[in-house]
């Protein structure tokens, strides 16, 4: 079986981002970028399936600018076999990405597509579901456990109030939740080797997809600043503030 893992280059989760002065988006100039953490989990899960003898090949794909090569190098250094860059300098949206991934999936014919449940930059949480619909394949989203047996995948999903287990017929789409695994680190020698590996470069047009945005961003705002705390002199004052100001009593 072949596993396809899409990976996205996003701003590093440890970086505190700032909204651009004109509110048109987030200022990414000179920020540290990294692989979307949920996608790292997806790569790790694919590697574990391969190590367990359940898969033979892992193909990673990224849709983005030339710098997304770094993200693919990281995935290769972690242990993926092959990488595809679908190059575009435009902003991409979940539907466009899902359409490109549909094209990649039809060419590559994987048994499983494992995606991060969402990217930490736009938090859309849509691509996996859209891809399942476009392909007409089964889907198991928010996976905290994944087991492959024959032509079936058993996915334990994190849902409100507990866990739900679904069985999917392959080929299928799985999206990863945080607790599925703890991804390994790419080592320096493997990163250096990965940089020398050839990467297949495609364009959205080679899959017949027009990535022109369908959505319009009206405004981007910083979260409201947290109000500073106050000191109270007595229990009576505390109760008064909790009842009348915080309105929690």
């Amino acid at each position, binding site marked *: 079986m072949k596993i396809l893992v899409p990976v996205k280059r996003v701003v590093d989760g*440890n970086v505190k981002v700032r909204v651009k002065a004109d509110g048109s988006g987030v200022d990414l100039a*000179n920020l*540290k970028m990294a692989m979307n953490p949920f996608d790292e989990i997806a790569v790790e899960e694919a590697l574990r399936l391969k190590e367990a003898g359940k898969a033979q090949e892992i193909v990673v794909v990224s849709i983005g600018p030339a710098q997304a090569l770094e993200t693919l190098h990281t995935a290769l250094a972690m242990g993926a076999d092959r990488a595809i860059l679908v190059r575009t300098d435009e902003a991409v949206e979940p539907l466009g990405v899902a359409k490109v991934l549909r094209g990649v999936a039809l060419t590559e014919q994987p048994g499983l597509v494992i995606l991060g449940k969402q990217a930490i930059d736009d938090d859309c949480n849509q691509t996996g579901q859209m891809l399942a619909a476009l392909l007409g394949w089964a889907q198991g989203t928010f996976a905290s456990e994944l087991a492959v047996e024959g032509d079936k995948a058993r996915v334990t999903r994190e849902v409100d109030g507990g866990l739900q287990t679904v069985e999917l017929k392959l080929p299928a789409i799985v999206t990863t939740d945080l607790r599925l695994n703890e991804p*390994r*680190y*790419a*080592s*320096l*020698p493997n990163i250096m080797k990965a940089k020398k590996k050839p990467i297949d470069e495609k364009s959205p047009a080679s899959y017949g997809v027009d990535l022109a945005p369908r959505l319009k961003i009206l405004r981007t705002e910083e979260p409201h600043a947290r109000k500073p705390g106050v000191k109270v002199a007595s229990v009576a004052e505390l109760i008064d503030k909790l009842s009348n100001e915080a309105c929690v009593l």
Partner: protein
Amino acid sequence: MAVPPYKAPSRPAYDIVIVGGAVVGSSVAYWLSQALGGRMSILVVERDSSYEFSSTALSTSAIRQQYSNPINVKISQFGIGIIRGFAERMKPFYKDEPAPDLGFKEHGYLYCCSPDGVEAAKARVDLQRSLGAHTVFLEPGPLKERFPWLNVEDLGGGAWGSRDEGWFDSMGLLNGFRRAARASGVEYIDNAVTGLTVDGGRVVAAQLATGETVSCGTLVNAAGPRAQQVAAMAGLSIPVAPFKRYSFVFSSAVPIPGRMPNVIDLSGTFVRPEGELFLTGNTPVDDGPADYDDFQMHHEEFDERIWPALWHRIPAFEALKVQQCWTGHYEYNMLDHNGIVGFHPEVTNFMFANGFSGHGLQQSPAVGRAVSELIIHGSFQTLDLSPFHYERIPRNEPFLEEAVI
């Protein structure tokens, strides 16, 4: 950059005006206030009162005994005493709360030494030991035995400080000095000095960003990386400029067992533990004078230079992930990377406390005391810091320190 809320000074004239209220300026203010007991008026002008860009806050916060100059070793010995006894010293200023413990981690420094450098390294160790430091020189065999995770193949040995070296809480030191100084009558204002008036060989007044002018009896330049800006306001010049240093905190897939020291590699890369993580930095490839407001990060420095060096020296650092990074400024003395301490010979009430080239934090206790002695007594009373005198600058006579990182 966030502009601090500017505050006007409370008086028109001060006996002493200190430009810069980070750790050097605050140490000067602390020692002056303790010696004078409120008999003189002292103003500290700090342009960045949240210390967001201050070299003190952005420092990697370590102290070592391993220097090549006796005076630097003695300065560190005094510094270590202050760090150890800080909570006790600060008690009077923290009445109803615990005084700051600086969390000193006494793991030592390990200076890696190339086969060619063994002789010089041993001579430095002998010098340090003759002054009471606990540095030992370890041949490759014993070095490997003590630090099994270290690659010693290309080393002639290593100089390890078994005591009195390590890292501590830089902001704790600054906050303590500052709080004690304020409690003893020193006035701090959020403001910037924008000009100085020199008359008859003396600084007579300082202009503030808010438009006020304060007269001063003595002016202390403790402006860190901006030292030359302040010197130029009095028509003076020192070869001090901001040099960027990139610091990276990373996690390692493989932990390092035992008490890992601050390892100084042959490449100039240092690395030390920081809780379960590690802190590293180096002399970057683009080293040179930077703009005062340039804090731009170069992530490539880690990927392309630091990580390969770390992996070579400590093979367990094969798989790493950067968790945090920041850019700080050294106040770099381009003549000899040593401090400049003392009055100017012609503008006779202009005091330098500048150019510490990355040692400012660890040297601040001794420098603050020395500056207060010069101001109050006209000469050094305890440690003689005269090798740092300003006069070497115009004479172009470097007072070199070999052990620089």
